[in-house]
């Protein structure tokens, strides 16, 4: 049993209190430790991803208690890929926060950042539904602090909405867990996968309610329409690096849906049939449409990016809701793309803010360093809107291809293509208002103090854009890997038997016992 799999949870969990207790007043030391921690996490996550890339399932039994009784951490291809994506995103977000000085505008940025990483990686690695709830809470508690980092009335008000909505979501999660436990007597995902199939067809009322409740909870996290109302305000008002890190949080919801609804309630299970194609797919299509219309309708750049996140989550959910191996593979490819592109756009919107009075989409006098920012915005917008040559285009093609041959192919193709057109219009309008129209405005008589973003900020954003480029160039390899991953998800027997049948302390009958 390897201990490395718990390191992505333990390392930030130790680093965060250390930063609070020992380096409270030394921003330099905090930065060094935070960066070193994230770099170490990248190495560990890459090692884990490499270790499971041959199809093995890593199992970690805490205190050596066997699965249904003890808590387990499980690493397979999907969870290690998500952990790797999280920590790589965290590196660039952290570089930007340091470069732009966001981390100095309030206390405890780095400690909360580490707790947030602990929650996210824990949610990806856990093999237990109640532990998933606990890690959701860990990441939410840290995100409440990060969300209102640096204060301000608008931010606090958005923070209240964000916290309340998520508390309601957590309460729903507990109701779902209670009904699952009452029906099956276990909360371990692998054990559940076995027990749910044993429920007779006449006794499925409780488990069906639980499955729908659980889907609702994850849909809140993934901001699927009509449960998306918390996202635009809170992402737009959150500090830019925090909003960029939040780009992975919606994916936690998507991950949970993929995990639970391929393993515990697979599409061919009679109990929950109709849940995906009848409910989830239309909701996903509507969120794709609403997100992209929101991009066109937004009056501020940060709102525009927030709506583009909703739209791209809609695209991910469309692909997931197909619940075919091709659909899941496309969704996973698109998840990586949309996380990187969304984070890059949030950081770029902060670059635009530097030197401008506000982020309103109105022509304002040109500011220092616009050319580079405009170039980065161009690249980010192309990626998010799904134009060639960047990975958004390839991801969209994969989704369209996966939808081909299903019953709803006309709807999927129509919504995806029309909403792409609308989002292209929205991004083009925003870009021309922000950057081109600026030159038609008279320069103010008294030139304001020239502020330009630091080089490190550009390095962080450029890093994300170059990762997107790499995601495009190596699309074949990445999609090949996500295809294997989807195949593993649709054959969960290895996962289930690894988790449930591995003996632990007190579980194996000794000889002659």
């Amino acid at each position: 049993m390897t201990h490395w799999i718990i390191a992505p949870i333990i390392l930030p969990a130790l680093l965060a209190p250390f930063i609070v207790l020992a380096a409270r007043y030394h921003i330099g030391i905090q930065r060094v430790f935070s960066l070193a921690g994230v770099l170490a996490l990248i190495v560990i996550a890459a090692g884990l991803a490499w270790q499971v890339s041959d199809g093995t399932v890593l199992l970690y039994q805490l205190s050596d208690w066997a699965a249904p009784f003890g808590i387990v951490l499980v690493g397979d291809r999907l969870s290690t890929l998500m952990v790797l994506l999280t920590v790589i995103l965290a590196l660039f977000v952290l570089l930007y926060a340091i470069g732009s000085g966001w981390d100095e505008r309030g206390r405890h940025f780095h400690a909360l950042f580490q707790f947030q990483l602990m929650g996210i990686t824990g949610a990806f690695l856990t093999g237990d539904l109640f532990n998933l709830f606990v890690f959701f809470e860990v990441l939410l508690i840290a995100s409440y602090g990060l969300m209102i980092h640096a204060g301000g009335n608008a931010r606090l008000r958005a923070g209240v909405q964000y916290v309340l909505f998520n508390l309601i979501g957590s309460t729903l999660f507990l109701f779902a867990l209670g009904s699952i436990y009452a029906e099956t007597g276990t909360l371990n995902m692998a054990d559940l996968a076995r027990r749910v199939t044993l429920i007779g067809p006449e006794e499925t009322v409780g488990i069906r309610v639980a499955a729908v409740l659980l889907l609702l909870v994850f849909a809140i996290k993934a901001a699927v329409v009509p449960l998306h109302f918390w996202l635009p305000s809170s992402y737009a008002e959150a500090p830019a690096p925090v909003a960029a890190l939040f780009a992975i949080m919606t994916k936690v919801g998507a991950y949970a849906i993929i995990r639970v609804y391929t393993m515990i309630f697979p599409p061919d299970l009679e109990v929950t049939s109709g849940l995906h194609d009848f409910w989830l797919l239309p909701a996903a299509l509507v969120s794709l449409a609403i997100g992209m219309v929101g991009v066109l309708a937004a009056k501020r750049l940060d709102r525009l990016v927030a709506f583009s996140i909703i739209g791209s989550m809609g695209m991910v959910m469309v692909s997931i809701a197909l619940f075919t191996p091709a659909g899941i593979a496309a969704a996973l490819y698109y998840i990586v793309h949309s996380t990187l592109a969304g984070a890059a756009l949030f950081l770029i919107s902060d670059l635009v803010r530097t030197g401008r009075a506000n982020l309103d989409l109105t022509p304002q006098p040109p500011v220092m360093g616009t050319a580079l920012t405009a170039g980065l915005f161009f690249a980010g917008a192309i990626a998010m809107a799904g134009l060639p040559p960047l990975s958004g285009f390839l991801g969209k093609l994969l989704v369209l291809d996966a939808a081909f041959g299903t019953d709803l192919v006309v709807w999927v193709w129509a919504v995806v293509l029309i909403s792409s057109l609308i989002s292209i219009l929205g991004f083009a309008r925003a870009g021309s208002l922000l950057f081109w129209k600026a030159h038609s405005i008279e320069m103010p008589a008294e030139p304001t103090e020239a502020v330009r973003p630091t080089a490190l900020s550009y390095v962080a954003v450029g890093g994300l854009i170059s990762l997107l480029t790499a995601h495009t160039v190596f699309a074949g390899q990445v999609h090949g890997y996500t295809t294997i991953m989807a195949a593993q998800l649709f054959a969960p027997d290895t996962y289930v038997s690894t988790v449930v049948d591995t003996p632990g302390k007190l579980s194996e009958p000794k000889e002659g016992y």
Partner: protein
Amino acid sequence: MELIVASAIGILTAGGIYLMLRLRTFPVILGLSLLTYAVNVFLFASGRLTIGAPPVLRDDMTVYTDPLPQALVLTAIVISFGMTAVVVMIGLGAFLGSDDDHVDDQPEDEDEQTEGQS
């Protein structure tokens, strides 16, 4: 007893949802507290209701109550208690800062008016 527990959960949930729809910070937080009480009792009941039975192994005992929901409830209580404290603090900060305890977004022109007055 099942009826009493079930109706208690139902009444708490109904009251909580009603208060949460009031869209002012204080009633919403109260409604959220009621909802968390409801969910705590619900979780507790998810291991079946057993009266006067120990949760851990004892001699001469044949009936046990399920100990796992009690552990789950304990976790849920701690988390919801802490979260309520956090949301009270953030809500108080937002109220003191903007002199407005609405949870939902107000129309923007109204906001400007109040800002102009204050």
